[in-house]
């Protein structure tokens, strides 16, 4: 577990030291945003889909109790073993418990942000269980000793030459080979051996259907399926908010998910797991970990509608130029910034401020989460709960006091402009953050108010 002391601002300052790299990261993610636009603009019913998906998820939040009970009853009838975990620690214990029971020490895992959130890999590592992440992007960051930087594109921050070096070191590929086709082929062979020899597969859950007790896992690579269909035990890990009421609702969500994420009409595989295969055990772990608490926050509960598509990250001009690791939470970007403070307001107090509130995120979100409004509201909540720096509070109180007194505002403005004119070097010194990359505006002799008084004199 990385010990965290740096804020988003500090980490993104570090990220921005290599400007060319930031531009590359930004352009790559912008291109994905454009692919999403292209897919969406081919569908006149796109906004209707978003509205419908949003309405279904609103219903889910309002009926989550009964839907969870219904899902459990149907899943159990299907032969799936259902577990409930109040928090991340319990989730990890439950998963390990299943492995221990069967004497398993080597497993494969496909992409699950829920397991990232719970720190499962680290936990299992301490218990001497060998976990191989089988999604190519996740395997890359795993070999590198990192966590994913994006929920859909785990190693978007890695260049192919760097991946080539990594594979040379760990997989024995020829030095200097950075051909994606070749490297993917090497990973295919390396991971195929794991699929064929490991008997437990952990997956995430994209959607769990209350009506039928089945759950859907969406991948492009087929790694979730290669793992589960060759395993004796399939453990699916799921946040409780991933429930949807009816099977027919998948017709809405599966039309939105891949198009929002990468601009594809669908992921290659949409695997509907309903019953364990003959001779196989299938488990599902339903995890709360702060979700029921978020459900009780009227201003923030809509964040639980998230289907983890990553569109908000791709569009966010700040995310593209700061990178997922600047957010220090498994879910980064705009959605991460409204989920994380619920878990630890103090630790993640910086995240809602890592935004200009431009609103792009809310408008690409397939389930219409009011992300940028929630960012604003979290700022108030965080300040109210005492997590703002004292110097900032002090400065804000002074500013508010000045702005509440017209004479003080006018005098302050006039003095500031005079100082800027008389002592330009004082104002231009680079310790003032504004001045690092920008010039200050030229200070005029007259404010608008002063001009108006001289030239119009009407009230």
């Amino acid at each position, binding site marked *: 577990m990385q010990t965290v002391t740096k804020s988003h601002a500090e980490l993104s300052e570090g990220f921005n030291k290599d400007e060319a790299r930031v531009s590359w990261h930004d352009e790559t993610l912008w291109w994905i945003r454009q692919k999403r636009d292209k897919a969406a603009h081919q569908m006149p019913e796109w906004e209707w889909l978003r509205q419908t998906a949003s309405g279904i998820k609103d219903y889910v939040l309002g009926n989550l109790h009964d839907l969870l009970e219904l899902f459990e009853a149907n899943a159990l009838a299907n032969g799936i073993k259902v577990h409930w975990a109040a928090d991340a620690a319990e989730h990890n214990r439950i998963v390990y418990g299943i492995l221990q029971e069967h004497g398993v020490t080597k497993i494969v895992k496909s992409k699950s942000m829920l397991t990232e959130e719970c720190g499962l890999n680290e936990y299992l590592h301490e218990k001497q269980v060998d976990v191989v992440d089988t999604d190519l992007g996740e395997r890359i960051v795993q070999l590198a000793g990192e966590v994913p930087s994006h929920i859909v594109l785990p190693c978007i921050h890695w260049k192919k030459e760097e991946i080539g070096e990594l594979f040379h070191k760990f997989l024995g590929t020829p030095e200097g080979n950075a051909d994606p086709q070749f490297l993917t082929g090497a990973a295919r062979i390396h991971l195929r051996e794991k699929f064929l020899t490991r008997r437990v597969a952990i997956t995430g859950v994209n959607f769990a259907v209350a009506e039928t007790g089945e759950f859907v896992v969406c991948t492009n690579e087929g790694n979730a399926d290669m793992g589960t269909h060759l395993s004796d035990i399939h453990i699916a890990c799921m946040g409780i908010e991933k429930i949807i009421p009816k099977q027919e609702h998948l017709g809405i969500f599966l039309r939105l998910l891949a198009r929002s994420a990468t601009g594809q009409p669908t992921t290659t595989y949409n695997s509907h797991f309903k019953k364990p295969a003959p001779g196989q055990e299938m488990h599902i772990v339903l995890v709360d970990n702060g979700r029921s608490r978020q459900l009780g926050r009227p201003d923030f509960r809509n964040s639980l509608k998230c289907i983890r598509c990553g569109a908000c990250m791709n569009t966010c001009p700040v995310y593209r130029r700061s990178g997922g690791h600047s957010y220090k939470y498994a879910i980064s970007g705009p959605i991460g910034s409204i989920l994380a403070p619920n878990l630890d307001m103090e630790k993640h107090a910086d995240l809602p401020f890592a935004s200009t509130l431009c609103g*792009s995120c809310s408008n690409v979100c397939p389930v219409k989460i009011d992300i940028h409004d929630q960012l604003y509201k979290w700022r108030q909540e965080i300040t109210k709960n005492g997590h703002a720096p004292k110097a900032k509070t002090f400065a*804000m109180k002074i500013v508010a006091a000045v702005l509440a007194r017209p004479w003080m505002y006018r005098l302050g403005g006039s003095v500031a402009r005079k100082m800027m004119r008389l002592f330009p070097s004082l104002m231009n010194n680079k310790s003032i953050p504004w001045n690092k990359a*920008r010039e200050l505006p030229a200070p005029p002799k007259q404010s608008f108010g002063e001009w108006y008084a001289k030239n119009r004199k009407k009230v």
Partner: protein
Amino acid sequence: MKIALFIPCYIDQFYPQVGIATLEVLERLGCDVHFPPNQTCCGQPMANSGYQHLDGGCDNLIVKNFSGYDYIVGPSGSCILHIKHHLHGEDEEASKDIRGKVFEFTEFLTDILKVETLEARFPHKVGLHQSCHGQRGLHLSQMSELVAPPFSKPEKLLGMVKDIELIKPERVDECCGFGGTFCVFEEAVSAKMGKDRVADHQNKGIEIITGVDVSCLMHMEGIMRRQKSPMKVMHIAEILNSR
């Protein structure tokens, strides 16, 4: 029709020419415009930084200074949006009344005055920066995220200006990176965002960047001047006021 002019604090102090241009355009369009002299600020700097609870002074000043008008018009998308969504002075009824009457400059011209022609001439290559709060908040123009019919109030007005060459940047509505106190608290990302916007306009051969928010323009201008760029910024009111 009695109109009150709301002048954002940073325009009042640093860009008075924008206030003058706004006033002159409105007057030329036949408006009876008043400038309440005791106005200060909309309160956004505190609110967006998490200190909405300190906005009482600003809110009460707005209620005090801007009650009793038919419309309140201001050359700023973000300030007007803030007032529209967050004005809650002690007098809630008066606040509600003002929230319903507050307009950004371009939307006032297109929606209320229903301007179809302008006596303006500006023979330059102009790039339109679409400020986020005006665009996505006040719906001054359609945003690229939505699958919806295109429209743009600022563009409609700029189209009435003779000899203007309006050029769009590659990324038509990406944020400039100002974001209020964001510009200093997340300086590195803010500067990079601003540099990228400036470069986008520069690469299209644009001479002057315009928009509805001087905060965006001030941030981009700061970067342009540091880079010794030949480009300039002008608020849309200044262009609509050019003859």
